[in-house]
């Protein structure tokens, strides 16, 4: 009997419970939709809690605050000390020293052990937001810079290497007097070039050349470099543009304190972006002509001659592949907007170097072509990957800025 009662209890209790429960009640006159909803709200009022961000939301918000307000001071830094060093990972630490001014201490070392350590002070809102001042000082080191000889007819088998280390310090003021297109830039820096034995597999420069056959070889030179530039720049942003243009002339003066290798240099640069289909395509062209003039009785050192080859100019050639007293670069890109953050591009680069300006013509241009992909924001190129093909092979370029 006892067992029987126990066996029956669960279903009976369940039946009675279900029949007696309020939700089962048939009477509806005293019930209302509003009351039912209020009951739901009353139940929720017993379990209230503040909104808690998910780990992903916290992380992204922290990153956003970093971008907007510099909440995090450490940052990645991918700039190498000199072209041709390869991928150069590094780190920096930004300290805001006033509302807008910053000091950034940073360093990197490339896969070829090129090193860079520098500190830069930036004041971006001088002269009622018309001017930006940058003061930078540091030390750099390059262990195996390729030199293929002067002129456009050199061969890859001519490669020799040089290495240098260099302390440097300088300041640059960029001025937009009307806050519009007109841009003036002036600056000066001091740098000492000290050469050392290269670490690469190519022979050292001083094993193939002598100071008599290659200006600047075997010397340590301290330069005072000053520059002035005037230009018209109406690109949306220098770091990423699909419209507008840049037309600029820059004059450089390199004064050798020993009066042996002093020279002047002029750069003429034109960039123009032609938007098509509402900027979803852009034909972008870029031209840069550089000429150098040795000062009286002095020479242009080989390591400061204009050069072509590398990730931003003749992309199908190795860095510094062509050098001489004058250079001409012509580039064209067909840029295709894939989405708001990603572009692809088909490009063609051509250029040459020559001892005399009159020898800079369009015959015998070195050229390459290729395809690229770029991740970007509205104002900056975050990552550029270009595959370039030239007569000397195929190269893969990684960059953290636009080619031009």
């Amino acid at each position, binding site marked *: 009997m006892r067992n*029987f009662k126990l*066996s*029956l209890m*669960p*279903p*009976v209790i*369940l*039946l009675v419970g*279900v029949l007696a429960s309020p*939700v*089962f009640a*048939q009477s*509806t*006159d005293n*019930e*209302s*939709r*509003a009351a*039912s*909803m*209020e009951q739901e*709200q*009353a139940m*929720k*009022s017993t379990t*209230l*809690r*503040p*909104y808690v961000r998910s780990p*992903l*939301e916290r992380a*992204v*918000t922290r990153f*956003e*605050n970093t971008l*907007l*307000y*510099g909440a995090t001071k450490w940052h990645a830094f991918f700039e190498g000390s000199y072209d041709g060093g390869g991928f150069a990972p590094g780190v920096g630490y930004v300290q*805001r020293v*006033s*509302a*807008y001014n910053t000091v950034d201490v940073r360093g990197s070392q490339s896969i070829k052990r090129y090193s860079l350590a520098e500190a830069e002070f930036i004041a971006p809102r001088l002269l*009622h*937001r018309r001017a930006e001042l940058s003061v930078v000082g540091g030390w750099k080191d390059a262990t195996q810079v390729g030199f293929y000889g002067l002129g456009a007819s050199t061969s890859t088998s001519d490669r020799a290497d040089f290495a240098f280390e260099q302390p440097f310090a300088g300041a640059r003021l960029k001025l937009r007097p009307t*806050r519009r297109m007109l841009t003036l830039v002036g600056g000066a820096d001091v740098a000492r070039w000290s050469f050392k034995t290269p670490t690469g597999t190519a022979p050292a420069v001083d094993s193939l050349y002598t100071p008599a056959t290659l200006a600047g070889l075997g010397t340590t030179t301290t330069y005072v470099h000053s520059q002035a530039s005037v230009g018209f720049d109406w690109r949306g942003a220098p770091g990423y543009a699909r*419209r507008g243009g840049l037309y600029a002339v820059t004059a450089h003066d390199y004064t050798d304190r020993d009066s042996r290798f002093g020279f002047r240099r002029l750069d003429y640069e034109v960039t123009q972006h032609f938007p098509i*289909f*509402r*900027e*979803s*395509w852009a034909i972008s062209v870029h031209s840069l002509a550089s000429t150098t003039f040795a000062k009286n009785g002095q020479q242009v050192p080989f390591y400061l001659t204009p050069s072509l080859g590398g990730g931003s100019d003749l992309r199908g050639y190795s860095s510094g592949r062509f050098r001489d007293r004058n250079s001409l670069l012509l580039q064209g890109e067909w840029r*295709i*907007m*894939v*989405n*708001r*953050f*990603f572009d*692809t591009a088909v490009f063609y680069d051509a250029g040459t170097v020559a001892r005399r300006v009159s020898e800079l013509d369009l015959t015998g241009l070195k050229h390459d072509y290729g395809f690229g992909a770029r991740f970007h924001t*509205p104002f900056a190129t975050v990552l550029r990957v270009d595959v370039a093909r030239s007569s000397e092979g195929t190269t893969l370029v990684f960059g953290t800025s636009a080619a031009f």
Partner: protein
Amino acid sequence: MSSKRLIAISLAVATAVLVSEVPTATRTPRFFRDDPLGREPASQDASGAASSEIGDLYEMVYNLFATSRYKASGVRAQNINTVDEVPDSHWFTNRIGAQALTIDDLVRGPIVGDAPDPSRWTIFREKTSGVHPGITAKDAHGDTWFLQFDPKYYPDAATASVMMATKFFWALGYNQVETFLTTFDPTRVEIGPDATVRRPNGRRTPFTHDDLNAILERVARRPDGTYRVVAGRLLPGKVLGNFRYEGTRPDDPNDVVPHEHRRELRALRVFGAWTNLTDLKSANTLDTLVSENGGAVVKHWLQDVGSTFGMNNDLREWDLGWEHFYQRGTTLKRLASFGFTLGPWQTVDYVEKPSIGKFEGVRFDPRAWRPQTPTTAYMELRDDDAFWAARRVGAFNRDMIAAIVHTGQFSDSSAERALVDIMLKRRDKILQAYLPAVNPIVSPRLCESELFFDNAAVDADVAQAPRRYTAAWFEFDNATGALRPLAETSSATTVMRAPTVLPTEMGSFVSVQIAADGTDYESWRRPIRAYFRRQIDGWKLVGLDRLPEEPATLVASRR
């Protein structure tokens, strides 16, 4: 097995069967005495709700890469009442389409107080939301206003968009900020002694004249040296940050319907398409804590509706309204074709007027319209939600639209006319897209001997009338949900004779399932289900299912 054990098992099985056989429908009646509900209650004190913001970047990333892949549940909106309408609430107030609004009502919109006195502005901080330049200032009366200027490349457009959009969205039912077009004269401005601005280093430091100049250099100036600004009044109550387009506020006891299932939030996909509200994101919303009946409730605002009509963040954003910032399919197509698969925005003819921006109505396709980023509520839009929204859009006639557009005070009258024309074109396309997509029978009325109803698609002139309408009549048991067939009738018009066998006792219910026959629209053959309750003054409509989720014999738990 012993007999006792058999009896026990039998009883248990019988109980289980009884419980399962007692229709779940009988647990609650289908219709309560206060159905259809006119106002969503907010019975609990929400004074414990705390401020919480959503980061712009997080929301964009989440919506572009997670929400865009969200699979719509197909769940019917959960805040609708039994007649398929949205009751008033702290989110929404039925206005156009539900009550007679005059031109004056529309022009006044959300305004309840006086306009600002621009004879002196006292700045006390920067503008904290939106992309267009602005400041926060007190007028000569000491009232706080958020001032927004026109960028140089869009004279009139940014301020006009805010003016017009606040009135359109107010009329559509949303809580809107009181906004006025007014003047900012830099010779009558002072910087408050405690005015500050947040610097890039994160610190607040005193607001300077150079800070003001930095703003004024970027904005459109009138020939007399003054600036046209739109002034938004400081909202009453404590600011709680943005609301989200999914889930509920965990600290608001009255917020029990997931936001993605609130019809008025889903419907922003339709209203957004009409007005081109491209910046449809939480950061443009606001919750405030306001006092009510001795307690506190959370009120929900569409705070910034300025990214509307042709107004974009930048002069060269032709794609807004046509594509999300990122779409996987479009990305792959463009990647594979080197950009040769052109989207409509690449070739569409915009009305290129600087006071309008990028806006057009010829190639506009409401179903293809895309905000910058999707929201979960946007993804959850069903055809019945869109139908509901389209009827409200259709309630705006040319005079109403023209009156609201006129509040933008365009200096170029041709721009004003063009905008009206575009809004009308877009309105008509919305009606065309959404009204015939479901059975468009609305407003069923049952008199003693006749059933009247309307066809919203036919009335809007976007569809041909069907050859005939059919109706299946049932006696409806409100307690059990059971239907007892009474008769079937038909009519070539929207007036139909009712059967003579309708119940006569007070409190009895009939259900009428009305469909269309002889029409190209397959969806019209799916009947709407109307429920009437007999009252002293006749039959009252208490229920209407346009796209129900479950058989009518089951009681829905929705409200």
